[in-house]
């Protein structure tokens, strides 16, 4: 039979240990362990002298003996500069910054799709803007054409090149304006398209006689006047925007 260790017996004396019942049973049947346990109990029965009783008012006297060097806690300083408060304030600031950032990102994400899907009014403004530019270029071409018809010599090749560039754009604008039920603008662009066709498809070097014929047959003076009127009209309808906000128009793109 294995005996209990001193440690187990001391634990048992202090009412500790996991197997109290086992120890108790063992002590009943093992005289050797019982003897050791009795010895431990005897040793621990020797108590140190009890603390001397304190006279009434001991606590007050104890306080009086120590209170002089103690300084009252500075309330305000503690209130505003304690660490928990600083941590809380930092957390609030961080939360506020995060909320602001999240809000800004969320708003941006909301604006993007709406910008992609342009409203009808917005689309119309873009058309007017681009159309105004087109009318401006056409007006300059017609002015140059009139000047060329008045002077002897051949037409500058750059004028024909400009007419060839303006022609596909003009066709797209005319179709767009027709769909938008603007008969005056549509008629003017139709007239312009015929003039541009004539200039663009003429032989490489137009002389002043050819130009005079085109002016006469196609009534370019009247067209120039119409273009100026229409350009003035589109300028009035066009919103006041910064040049930097205008994106370059790509040829062939649908409006």
């Amino acid at each position, binding site marked *: 039979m294995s005996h209990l260790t*001193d*440690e187990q017996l*001391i*634990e048992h004396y*202090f009412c*500790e240990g996991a197997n109290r019942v086992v120890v108790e049973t063992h002590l009943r049947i093992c005289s050797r362990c019982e003897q050791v346990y009795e*010895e*431990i109990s*005897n*040793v*621990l*029965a*020797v*108590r*140190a*002298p009890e*603390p*001397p009783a*304190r006279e009434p008012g*001991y*606590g*007050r006297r*104890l*306080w009086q*003996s*120590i*209170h002089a*060097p*103690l*300084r*009252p*806690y*500075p*309330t305000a300083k*503690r209130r505003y500069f*304690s660490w928990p408060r600083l941590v809380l304030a930092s957390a609030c600031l961080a939360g506020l910054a995060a909320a602001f950032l999240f809000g800004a990102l969320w708003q941006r994400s909301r604006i993007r799709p709406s910008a992609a899907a342009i409203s009808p009014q917005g689309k119309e403004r873009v058309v007017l803007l681009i159309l105004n530019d087109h009318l401006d270029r056409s007006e300059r071409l017609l002015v140059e054409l009139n000047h060329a018809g008045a002077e002897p010599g051949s037409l500058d090749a750059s004028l024909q090149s400009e007419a060839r560039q303006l022609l596909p754009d003009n066709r797209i604008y005319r179709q767009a304006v027709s769909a938008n039920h603007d008969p005056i603008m549509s008629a003017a662009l139709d007239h312009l398209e015929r003039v541009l066709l004539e200039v663009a498809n003429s032989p490489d070097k137009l002389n002043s006689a050819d130009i005079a014929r085109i002016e006469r047959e196609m009534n370019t003076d009247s067209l120039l006047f119409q273009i100026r009127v229409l350009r003035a009209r589109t300028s009035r309808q066009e919103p006041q925007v910064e040049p930097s906000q205008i994106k370059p128009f790509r040829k062939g793109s649908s409006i």
Partner: protein
Amino acid sequence: MGNSDQALIRAVLAGNKDAYGVLVERHGESMFRVAFRITENEADAQEIAQETFLRGYRSLAEFDARADFRTWIYRIAVNCALQLLKKRKCEAAVPISEEFDEEHAGIQLADGGAGPERLLLDREIEHRRHAAMEKMTEDERLAFVLRHLEGRSTEEIAAALDVTPNTAKQSVFRAVQKMRRSLAPLWVKS
């Protein structure tokens, strides 16, 4: 203002120094008692009680409002006692026998008669008990007092000594063994 420990602590931290006086009055005697049990010296116990409440006041801002003030100040008292024991050990120029305080030499052995032989035996027992206490390390002594005289659990002792529960248990065990070695010859004699 409420009169609970927590309310008094709040008042102290709000600048009312005198509220701490109520806490000292409330817990002063029990701190003296534990200090005496550890040091077995009235003057030392008095010194520890004062030092305990001075340290407590200075550290009150760090006190966790959810904790129990009595447990907290008790731990400070144990630490103060531990430091004093170490200090006394360093100053151990005085022999143990001279430190022995005969005024408190009465022991509590159950005995009806108080004849001269019995008084002699009591004195011998107390002398050996005191010598055994002096032979213990500071941790053993504290663990023994807290377990045996103060009735604290192993976990409480471990927290007070800032050691693991197993280390605290071992300290108690070694202290009891030292006490046994010192007192065993008397049982054989008697």
